[in-house]
């Protein structure tokens, strides 16, 4: 288990940068300038890479820039872009047959725990360290937000070793979770944005009003029987209640008292403030539902949905949306989940150097900023967050200037992947989500449901 405490790590990396600077000054003083290795970007000229891309704003931002990569390196790039489900199907088929049809592909830590176990991923540390392939100063691997980069590291040991061992992926964007609300409606209802889950529960019955097109419901959040419920959105609430899937000693916490309390509160919230049908919302419905103006509040949904909310072409609320930190748990704790899209290199690729050059280019500082400006949110490098143009782009997002950025940055301080790595973690999380849904639909005993899920998950682990 690793925990990303961004604040601490940033401080660490600032010290690291100062040290690196001293070292490089020393190196400059001691060695002739010519000793510094130059990366020859044309070294794989003539190669053709094939990528597997999963539909995402990142891909829309990448496509127009591929010509730039070809001009710089002489490497041609072809790609297949697919939706998530068929995309990961094809990827699994290719990786498991070891044909190397895709040299580089989009993936995530959850997927990589399977792929890395199987040996389908090329570890990236040697490529970063190779000065013929990577200009360390220019690439500046320490510029990545440390916890986000660390989510791509794993020792391959089930249930532990995340953030340690080899690096299997480089991050391309990250999301965390937040409250989005309608300032005009909150004002009309005379309500303050809740600071704690207790506040939220107290105001839940009042969260409804009439709009021009009919009733406006209280809150919306995804609630399907799928791993993303305990891992991401409700996961953010669980973690603020102090619940992690396993505790420090490796014991499952799915039916701990805190978990039961969080689940009871969540079910109560949905029952009180969400309309019928709330027990089946998928992420896209949660996003479109809030963008359609039918809800006062969106609870703990992905912060990068803001790019949809703020776009008048896709949203009815572009001029009436605010953002707030996720509520504090009963002990005043705030912790948030994190989702990281990343790219990995196929260990069966027949042109790994060319593939690395692509990976290096696509995650380099300049290219990253350009892609963030074209809609690939949120940044995974400090330098991107520091970019003024990018700051200006999101400046208007929110009730007051700079609100989105402030909330996103502050939430990312407490965002982390707090789950034990395992190739079949989603099987366990699906079972957990089932227990939460049972508590909603069957009016059943929350503790019984969660303990049954914990028992089932323990069996999966024992197999």
């Amino acid at each position, binding site marked *: 288990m690793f925990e990303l405490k961004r604040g601490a790590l940033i401080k660490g990396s600032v010290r690291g940068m100062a040290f690196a600077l001293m070292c490089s000054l020393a190196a400059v003083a001691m060695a002739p300038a010519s000793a510094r290795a130059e990366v020859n970007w044309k070294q794989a000229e003539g190669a053709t890479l094939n990528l597997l891309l999963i539909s995402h704003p990142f891909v829309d931002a990448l496509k127009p820039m591929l010509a730039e990569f070809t001009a710089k390196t002489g490497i041609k790039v072809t790609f297949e872009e697919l939706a998530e489900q068929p995309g990961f199907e094809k990827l699994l088929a290719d990786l*498991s047959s070891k044909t190397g049809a895709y040299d580089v592909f989009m993936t995530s830590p959850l997927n990589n725990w*399977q792929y890395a176990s199987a040996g389908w991923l090329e570890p990236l540390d040697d490529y970063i360290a190779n000065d013929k392939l990577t200009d360390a100063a220019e690439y500046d691997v320490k510029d990545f937000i440390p916890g986000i980069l660390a989510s791509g590291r794993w020792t391959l040991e089930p249930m532990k070793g995340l953030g340690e061992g080899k690096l299997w992926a480089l991050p391309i964007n990250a999301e965390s979770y937040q409250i989005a609300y309608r300032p005009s409606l909150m004002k009309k209802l005379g309500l303050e944005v809740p600071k704690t889950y207790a506040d939220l529960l107290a105001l839940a019955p009042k969260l409804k009003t009439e709009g021009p097109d009919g009733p406006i419901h209280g809150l919306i959040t995804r609630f*399907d*029987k799928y791993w993303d419920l305990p891992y991401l959105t409700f996961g953010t609430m669980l973690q603020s209640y102090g619940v992690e899937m396993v505790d420090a000693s490796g014991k499952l916490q799915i039916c701990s008292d805190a978990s039961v309390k969080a689940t009871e509160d969540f079910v109560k919230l949905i029952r009180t403030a969400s309309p*019928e049908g709330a027990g089946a919302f998928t992420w896209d*419905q949660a996003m*479109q539902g809030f963008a359609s103006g*039918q809800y006062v509040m969106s609870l703990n949904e992905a912060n990068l949905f803001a790019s949809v909310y703020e776009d008048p072409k896709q949203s009815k609320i572009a001029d009436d949306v605010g953002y707030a930190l996720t509520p504090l748990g009963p002990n005043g704790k705030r912790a948030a989940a994190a989702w990281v899209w990343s790219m990995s290199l196929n260990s069966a690729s027949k042109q790994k150097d060319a593939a690395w050059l692509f990976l290096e280019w696509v995650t380099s500082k300049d290219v990253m900023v350009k892609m963030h400006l074209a809609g690939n949110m949120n940044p995974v490098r400090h330098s991107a967050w520091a970019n003024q143009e990018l700051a200006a782009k999101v400046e208007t997002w929110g009730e007051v200037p700079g609100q989105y950025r402030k909330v996103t940055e502050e939430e990312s301080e407490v965002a982390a992947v707090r789950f034990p790595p395992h190739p079949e973690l989603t099987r366990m999380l699906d079972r957990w989500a089932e227990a939460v*849904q049972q508590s909603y639909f069957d009016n059943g005993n929350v503790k019984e449901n969660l303990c049954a899920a914990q028992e089932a998950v323990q069996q999966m682990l024992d197999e």
Partner: protein
Amino acid sequence: MASAASGKGALAGGRAIYIAMLAPALCLLFLTIVPFLDGVYTSLTNEKLYAGVTRFVGFANYLKLAQNPTFWIALGNTLLYAGLATLIQIPLGLAVALLLDVPSKVQWFFRSTIALPLLIPPVVAGLMWKTMMQPQSGVLNWLLAQVGLPPFAWLSDPSTALVSIVLIDTWLFMPLAAIILLAGLQSISGEVLEAARIDGANAWQTIRHIKLQALKPYIVLVAMFRIPDALKSLEIIYATTRGGPLNATRTLHVMAYEEAYRWSSLGRAMAIVFILWVLSYIFSTILLSLWRKEEMRFHGR
């Protein structure tokens, strides 16, 4: 008959035929039976794509399924889905076919538009209907509200989700039933209908005593197409509910798909697929013999 006259020629010809038949037989063997047996064998192993070692585990996967309550729910859902789909689509298809059989000047228009849903990929249809069935913003509940009816939960409640998906399935595949049954209606000779008319049979009597009798083999044919297909339905379910809410729309195929593609567990996936195959095989065999009987009865062969 010429070769029968000379024994030697017959033998050579016979051998040539056997040799000629060998090639397709081998193709069949390698393209169908070998993969099938390989699948059955896989179901007896613990094969996981991401794990290096595969072991023979006997019937462990099947035993584990029998102990898994979700499997029994999924089995029930699978049978219910196929049963509901067939029971709704055959009478509805029959009604549509009877309407399309009525001579009229605008018939060509209806006959060509009825088949349109068949051209839409099930995944696309699923996504389309998911939007329309959305409880708050979907057009279906809006329509219900227009006629003063309360909103319906559609896909979002465990008690209504499976039926809602069967409705989508019906929208997609009822035209297939209608087209097959229409072909059956049109194969009834005009003389028989004419004779019935002269004998004073009214429309209902004609339908009941002549058309339905003649359609029996076609109805069995529709069931032969639809039941195994509905048992294996996956795309609509995955595009709408992914097996939820709770396990309300989890079918055997959804379970097998998730084992294979989400958790790389080929052994377990193949065990579920094999059970699904047995179900399809049983239904197909029963329907096939029923169809032969009907054909024989009707055509007197």
